[in-house]
């Protein structure tokens, strides 16, 4: 357990060293936050209460999306490129020798990365957004806490998906295509483009039960108090269920893949 804590802390520190890049990223998130916020204002001006959100809730949605974009890796950009590269070059064989579990090792690292991005890339856009627009911020500490738990679960789901993407490199060798497909799905089905409650008919229903909704839609709804009381457990169960299922699949794929590596001799 201590090992994984060290790995997580290491990744946190690693991302924390890129200060200019973080500042530049915050700038970009803020610019996009403004552009999207204005389009949402135009949309909710026409249709107040669209998708079950009022104007301030819709604007909160925009800024939370920018704040969580890197944390939940909606557009990819975490450990997966590195792992794909290690698989392609065969360096992953060295990782398999280590007295640590491959999946947990990368999960710990990704949690460290996500924690840094939540602080480094999340807080400032949220602050700017709340100064420039009227956002629906939770008044109780309990909801803030519940939100953080939901974000953490979202990060695990995001990790589990990207881990599967990375493992595909064992078969495809060039993981770029898969990474891009996953990135597109994440962008579309997380609710980053538009709240999933605005997706029409069956598309909306399907989008809401897919794992990607754990990345943004569910945490935002927790933030906006859409899950009162015991309802919250239902939201958590949804996220945790996907997290466990995808982690298990990842584990199975991993064992098949590693047997393959041994056969090939790395």
């Amino acid at each position, binding site marked *: 357990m201590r090992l994984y804590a060290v790995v997580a802390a290491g990744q946190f520190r690693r991302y924390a060293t890129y200060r200019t890049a973080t500042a530049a990223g915050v700038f*970009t998130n803020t610019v996009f936050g403004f552009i999207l916020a204005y*389009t949402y204002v135009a949309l909710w001006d026409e249709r107040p209460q669209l998708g079950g959100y009022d104007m301030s809730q819709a604007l909160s949605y925009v800024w939370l999306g920018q704040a969580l974009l890197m944390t939940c890796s909606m557009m990819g950009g975490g450990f997966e490129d590195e792992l794909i590269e290690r698989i392609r070059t065969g360096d992953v064989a060295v990782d398999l020798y280590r007295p640590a579990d491959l999946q947990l090792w990368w999960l710990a690292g990704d949690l460290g990365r996500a924690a840094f991005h939540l602080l480094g890339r999340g807080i400032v856009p949220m602050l700017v957004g709340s100064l420039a627009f009227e956002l629906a911020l939770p008044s109780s500490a309990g909801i803030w806490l519940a939100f953080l738990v939901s974000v953490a679960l979202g990060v695990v789901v995001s990790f589990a998906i990207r881990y599967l993407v990375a493992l595909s490199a064992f078969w495809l060798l060039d993981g*770029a295509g898969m990474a891009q497909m996953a990135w597109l799905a994440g962008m579309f089905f997380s609710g980053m483009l*538009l709240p999933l409650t605005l997706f029409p008919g069956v598309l909306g229903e399907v989008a809401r039960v897919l794992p990607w909704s754990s990345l943004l839609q569910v945490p935002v709804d927790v933030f906006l108090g859409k899950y009162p009381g015991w309802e919250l457990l239902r939201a958590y169960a949804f996220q945790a269920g996907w997290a466990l299922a995808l982690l298990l699949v990842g584990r199975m794929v991993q064992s098949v893949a590693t047997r393959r590596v041994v056969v090939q001799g790395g």
Partner: protein
Amino acid sequence: MAGTAGGPRPEDWPEAVFAQRPRFVEGVRAYGLIAMMWLRSTMAYRASFAMTAFGNFAATAFDFVAITLMFSHVDRLGGYTLPEIALLYGVSGTAFGLADLLLGSMDRLGRRVRDGTLDTLLVRPVPVLAQVAADRFALRRLGRVLQGVLVLGYALVVLDIAWTPLKVAMVPLMLLSGAAIFGALFVAGAAFQFIAQDAAQVQNAFTYGGNTLLQYPPSIFAKDLVRGVTFVVPLAFANWLPALYVLGREYPLDLPDWVAFLSPVVAVLFWLPAGLAWRSGLRAYRSTGS
């Protein structure tokens, strides 16, 4: 010539070819040769190329999907109909796509400054700007252009425009000026990376952010923001003003009618500070030594 037959490798470039031509021609020629080289290398993995080109197409198409999803709930956004917004979107998307295809690699400059590989480019007898711009030339970015053209085509078919010769001329004019304006933005952004090496994202905020901004009508944005992209960073000349002329709609900020025709002038003028910034960035460059 090396460029057509045997595959241009840097060591094959005869110095004399570049030495006796005007610098601009020299740069364009070098750009072509380097781009061809990267093109051939990408085509070695055709399946990967097809996938990433499709990915580029799909990723940008999602923006328009989001807009159509919005229009499944409303008839107008900021007073504009879907076909009208499609015109704004198509012009901006195509112009930006062209600039991105030609100069999109320039956001890698910061990395080159950091790891010292920019030095290699400095010793070659070819303009550095051409080398940086053509570096890793990615034809897959055509996916973005294609998507913009398709949406533009849809808008032009569906819209009921009272065409005049001037309006017809405005269509190619705004695409080219728009591409030039975005291009200048790429060069200015790269110049900024000489100073802030880690800040490729700031450049993206202006390029990709500018593109996203222009996809929506000016009526939905705050006045100060519209002023900023008209008079400070002249993005409004890339599509808002000329496209609103074609649509016959009122301009933002009560600008007079004729400003729509300034787009090519603005594009040329915008290249001056961008070019100067690039030159001074390059002059001030000190290698990391690694």
